[in-house]
């Protein structure tokens, strides 16, 4: 497999992203390594082909933003909005992720080995997110669709104003947000969890040790008696 290396000490970010936006025929199946990222923002954003990208260190804001098809591995930690609005493909953060990881993402798989900051999975629209560690407060705020798996603990107001996304938590939950409630683990949800644990390298985790959360659907249509929850 052909590997091409861009060293961000030598190349500009524009050169890296422009190359990664080449025709799919040029990129499919290739591996592109980004050396010395040193927290640069917007690395590997807007990818649209089946290319493998390895970022050899820490990435800044919006790494792999709006990803389609590509497989992006961040060997260090990722800044705010990693894989934001991802459509498909896979993004793997081996370190920690900052705020708004996977924000508004529509598809694909985001795997974070460490902890994620505030608002992980905010407004998610179909993405699958697996966090090996814990997530900060307001995670899955207004989450519309998709699955958020948290192997560690969750902060305050988890799943506030939740729509149809599922949240699986193994550890403790500081508090649930408005309209988020515990649900019985049905067979379909359990299978989704088992699959996601396997896909993210957590196949040893016991699916029965997770709690399933979903929307109570009380805020779906405004009623004055629920005004305090808005």
């Amino acid at each position, binding site marked *: 497999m052909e590997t091409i290396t861009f060293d961000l000490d030598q190349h500009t*970010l*524009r050169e890296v*992203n*422009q190359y990664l*936006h080449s025709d799919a025929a040029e990129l499919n199946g290739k591996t592109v390594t980004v050396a010395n990222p040193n927290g640069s*923002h*917007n690395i590997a*954003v*807007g990818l*649209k082909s089946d290319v493998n990208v390895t970022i050899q260190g820490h990435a*800044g*804001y*919006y790494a792999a*933003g*709006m990803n*389609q098809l590509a497989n992006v591995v961040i060997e260090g930690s990722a800044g*705010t*909005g990693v894989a*934001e*609005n991802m*459509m498909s493909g896979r993004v793997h953060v081996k370190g920690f992720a900052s*705020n*708004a990881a996977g*924000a*508004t993402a*529509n598809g694909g798989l985001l795997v974070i080995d460490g902890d994620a900051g505030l*608002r992980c999975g*905010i*407004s998610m*629209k*179909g993405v699958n997110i697996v966090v090996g560690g814990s997530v900060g407060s307001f995670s899955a*705020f*207004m989450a*519309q*669709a998709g699955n958020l798996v948290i192997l560690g603990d969750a902060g305050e107001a988890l799943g506030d*104003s939740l*729509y*149809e996304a599922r949240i699986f938590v193994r550890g403790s939950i500081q508090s649930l947000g408005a309209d988020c409630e515990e649900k019985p683990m049905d067979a379909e949800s359990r299978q989704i969890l088992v699959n996601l644990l396997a896909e993210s390298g957590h196949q040893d985790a016991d699916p029965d040790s997770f709690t399933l959360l979903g929307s109570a659907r009380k*805020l*779906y*249509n*405004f009623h*004055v008696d629920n*005004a305090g929850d808005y």
Partner: protein
Amino acid sequence: MSDAPKIPQTEPRYSATFDKNTAAEIRRAAATGIYDIRGAGAKRKLPHFDDLLFLGASISRYPLEGYREKCGTDVILGNRFAKKPIHLKTPVTIAGMSFGALSGPAKEALGRGASAVGTSTTTGDGGMTPEERGQSSILVYQYLPSRYGMNPDDLRKADAIEVVIGQGAKPGGGGMLLGQKISDRVAKMRCLPKGVDQRSACRHPDWTGPDDLEIKIAEIREITDWEKPIYVKVGATRPYFDVALAVKAGADVVVLDGMQGGTAATQEVFIEHVGIPILAAIRPAVQALQDLGMHRKVQLIVSGGIRNGADVAKALALGADAVAIGTAALIALGDNDPHLEAEYNKLGTTAGAYDDWHEGKDPAGITTQDPELMKRVDPVKAGRRLANYLSVLTMEAQVIARACGKSHLHNLEPEDLVALTLEASAMAKVPLAGTNWIPGVTQF
């Protein structure tokens, strides 16, 4: 029979404070326990472009010949950073209005009308529809807090991208599309269950302040390979600072929307009491651009209550590069038309006052997702009416510019204007008519 003298009676007197509208709203609130929601922008009387006048040419300045001497109207937007800036034939654009808030045929009509005269339309919350992209030769794609329907394929299809921070009708507020307008198609585009109230966040999910915005804009530029102009839209509140920060964050174009600018639905109290009129916002915005040496380099589009060519000319004379229309465009398509009076009456309102756009029952078929009602919009005919209206706006602005001796609309300047009221004089920073006085700037 009594001989007692008749005692004069006082006339029944309504309170100016507790007028009929106010009392009716108190009764409605008491009965329902919920605030009033409606569409459109501020309806109260506000200092506006009507409070300004052009001076025209005289002995000291001479005019251009009406139909012979050229008066340019074109504008280029986004040449600060974008590789592919936008060229418009007229500085009147169509403001962002969503599919969801508006019907598919209404969006198509907007695209047809705008394209016919060489100007742009703008998507809204809910994403880009094929009808809209297909009929709009120049389409601005909004990037909103909810990111409903946002995807990189549409981002690449757009001609420009507008990062929406706020809008004039509700600066600081999110959106609301009530369940009755969430049809199967709208639900699918927004990834929500059918019939559920769609709440749009008031803040972007993955950035907060101006420093983050700079990185966000850089991300969108990287994704689109620096080709497309990036606009930043703000509701008019603190225009000097917001425009300066948008420029600092890397915007190509700033869109400034006054409180008369419409919304699909929000609280009446929000529409009427938050934000400032566009008249008060333009000069501080232009001042910010001038202080940064960026006037005419970062273009300024203003909106909120633009109705005729005089409004266009006045906005440009105060320093804007272009204007956007929303409410006026809907009226041109057929919104609130008197021929539907009987149907408006059935909804408890009257033609010209109908603003319950969130209920999805629009007899004109514009602010609805009802498949039967929306058939009433013929996109070709409605598009033609919009094209006609846009042409009139442009020609009217040219009439005024020529009268002021200007060979391009952009040559209009504040010195061409005077104000009729002290308020307008202070806000627009042009002298009170017949004087040299600008309150806050010069001594009486």
